[in-house]
């Protein structure tokens, strides 16, 4: 049996609105948008023009600095618009979907017979390559590098995250094929992070050719960053690739069927959702197809593509992110809070806090309806030790954040910036008394190092 690593530090934020294990089909979206902004640091080079007809799987743009990485259209249809922002930066490529999908069929290499290079080329040509991300830097993997290992986490511990045991149930063939494909890409092992707290679906239990390690503990135990750190930490100059479990099944599906079919289950969650459930949908679909009519109060709520800790802020008119398996809808917190009733001197029964300054710790089973208020004001660092409590790494988070803030590359390197991604700091940002945007600081630090040193 695999070994279990138990993590003492972390925090489960108990929110109202977990998705019930029922799957509905989301209506087909009229438009789909592939947004280069979903892929951090990407400069796209367009391969299509407005009015072009595309199939599902047709390449629509490529990475300007790494042209072998191509990004494909999730559906067949017509290029409707290329939205540009400041300095003509491409923000999104909007595709008007045809009534049904035709797939761009390419030659598929079979991992059991093909060479590693053939498998890699096949993945690059398919447009599925962007599903593989790399550490350090938390960006789309650079195909030139050879990773020392590839990590997949079989569970997501973020607040209200989809349950992969449910999502991937019955997809054993796809999942195993995905693993076999990844196995070709690395000299090391493919690691599967198992959930040490519960019995998992046979998809994961029966997976072959993987090194399984179980992790038990609170969030972020399900983050690959934590799992890499505790089993095979990244040193300077090393690369580790990571793939989301559901994306791995998508890769497997491609190698089984030859179809660029991104269909996945998306959990619609959050306190403002009337009946939180799973929806079968495509990424990049219009948010309205999933959210409209399903929420309680459309005027004053925040729609997040992804989880409440590191998702992106969307609206009913925008699109589901490329990587996201979840939508979270929360109440906006744009009201002032009087100090005695709801502010800093209140009893705070409805506030969730990891500190013992609010009575959250007295109600271990209670679930909370949290809004997006900052609950305080931006300050310098004052309180010490609070970040460490939710950061299960052998890294000093506050020192690393300060190094990032001061753009001190040497310190960032020696303090372990290569091992972390912004999402690993999401809880630090949540608990920070001084309300510092820690994920932004870490991202800026990573960008700086990538620009200066790589």
């Amino acid at each position, binding site marked *: 049996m695999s070994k279990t690593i138990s993590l003492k530090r972390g925090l489960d934020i108990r929110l109202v609105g977990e998705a019930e294990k029922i799957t509905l089909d989301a209506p087909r979206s009229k438009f789909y948008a592939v947004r280069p902004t979903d892929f951090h640091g990407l400069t796209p080079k367009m391969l299509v023009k407005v009015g072009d007809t595309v199939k599902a799987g047709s390449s629509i743009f490529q990475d300007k600095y790494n042209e072998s990485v191509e990004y494909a259209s999730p559906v067949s249809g017509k290029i409707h618009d290329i939205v540009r922002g400041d300095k003509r930066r491409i923000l999104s490529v909007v595709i008007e979907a045809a009534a049904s999908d035709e797939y761009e069929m390419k030659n598929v290499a079979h991992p059991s017979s093909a060479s590693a290079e053939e498998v890699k080329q096949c993945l690059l040509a398919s447009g599925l390559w962007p599903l593989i991300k790399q550490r350090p830097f938390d960006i789309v993997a650079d195909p030139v590098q050879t990773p020392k290992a590839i990590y997949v986490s079989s569970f997501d511990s973020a607040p209200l995250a989809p349950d992969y045991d449910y999502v991937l149930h019955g997809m054993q063939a796809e999942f195993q094929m995905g693993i076999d494909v990844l196995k070709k890409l690395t000299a090391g092992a493919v690691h599967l992070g198992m959930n040490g707290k519960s019995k998992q679906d046979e998809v994961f239990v029966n997976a072959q050719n993987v090194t399984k390690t179980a992790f038990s503990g609170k969030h972020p135990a399900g983050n690959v960053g934590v799992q890499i750190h505790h089993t095979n930490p990244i040193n300077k100059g090393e690369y580790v690739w990571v793939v989301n479990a559901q994306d791995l099944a998508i890769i497997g599906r491609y190698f089984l069927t030859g179809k660029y079919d991104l269909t996945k289950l998306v959990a619609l969650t959050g306190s403002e959702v009337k009946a939180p459930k799973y929806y079968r949908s495509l990424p990049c679909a219009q948010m309205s197809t999933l959210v409209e009519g399903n929420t309680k109060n459309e005027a004053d709520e925040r729609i997040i593509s992804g989880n409440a800790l590191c998702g992106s802020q969307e609206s009913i008119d925008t699109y589901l992110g490329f990587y996201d398996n979840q939508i979270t809808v929360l109440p906006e917190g744009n009201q002032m809070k009087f100090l005695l009733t709801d502010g800093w001197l209140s009893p705070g029964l409805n506030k969730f806090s990891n500190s013992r300054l*609010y009575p959250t710790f007295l109600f271990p089973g209670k679930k909370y309806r949290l809004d997006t208020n900052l609950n305080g*004001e931006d300050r310098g660092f*004052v309180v010490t030790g609070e970040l460490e409590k939710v950061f299960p790494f052998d890294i000093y988070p506050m020192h690393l954040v300060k190094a990032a803030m001061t753009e001190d590359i040497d310190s960032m390197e020696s303090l372990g910036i290569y091992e972390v991604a912004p999402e690993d700091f999401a809880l630090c940002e949540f608990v920070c008394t001084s309300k510092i945007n820690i994920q932004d600081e870490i991202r800026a630090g990573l960008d700086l190092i990538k620009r200066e040193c790589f």
Partner: protein
Amino acid sequence: MKFLEKQLKKLEPTFAKGGKLEKLHYVYDALATFAFTPATTTTRGAHIRDGVDLKRTMFIVVLALIPALIFGMYNTGHWHFVAESGNWNLPYWEQMLDKFLYGAIKVLPMIVVSYGVGLGVEFIFCNIKGHPIHEGFLVSGMLIPLVMPVEVPLWMVGVATGFAVLIGKEVFGGTGMNIVNIALTARAFLFFAYPTKMSGDTVWMGGKEADGFSGATFLGDAQSLISDSPTVEGVSGIMDKYSFMDSFLGMIPGSIGETSALACLIGAVLLIATGVGSLRIMLSFAIGGLATGYLFNAIGVNAYMDIPAYMHLVVGGFAFGAIFMATDPVTAAQTASGKIWYGFFGGMLAVLIRVLNPAYPEGVMLAILFMNIMAPLIDHYVVQANINRRLKRLKVA
């Protein structure tokens, strides 16, 4: 509350940029955010945030100081009556209302001056620098009077506070950026600028003392043990004059808030229960002091060294310093293991200075200030150990 909210919103343009009272914007901002947590929402990153903020954190510390403050007022009153009557053994728990009122009349103006001057300086400074007023002074303003002897004139409290806020904090960038503890900066300023008002045997009792009455503290008397003219007869003499229980309860003369170890401990319970104060620092500080005390007991070459080690924990500012001063998160060590070393050396130094340095009867203030300066060094070594672990891994791989 809707009414108040409306009024605040109505006033906002007056203080906004271009408004009539634009210069007072940060004063308005401080008062408005005091009454209402602003409607600011998150934009990216974590969309939800912990309920805790700096205002609540600081408020808990002020709350934890209340027992020491109340007891300090009463104790001040008591020693005033002792000094007036010349009777050291005046019953402690009689004339309670008189004593408390006298103490309150002496102490409250100091608190008013401390908050008034400190917040005044912050308001002006923040306006010039254009950053909002931070909460740090809520605690400093309360700490400053509590570490002063009762006889210190009000103007000195004001000057010291102004100095501490300006030089100790604002020049470094405000709350969270200072290197040494603000309240101790104020005390150290007076200690070196006006030594006659900060130590000796005439500053601890309020009002005029009876002829021939010496208002020394335990530490003053202990110091005299190793001088040519001891004021008490040996270790047994000093232990007769100040029993352990009296010292623990705080029924001894001293700075306003520091005398009662019990009152400080009540505060400590609140700080530890809420997680605001670091138990590591408090414990290691006490252990450091105790260990050094026992070491001196073992050496025992003079009468001061023979004073029982545990007495060091309950007299002077030891308990107050360990609980409220050393634990200041901004100036203490920031790493978990660093905090242990920081506290241990702090406690050790405090007793070391008390026993070995004839010029300074009380060593806690200097010990903590010194450790404030050393804290980054301690953290440096702790963090460096982590860095070395990472480097070693690279070599193995």
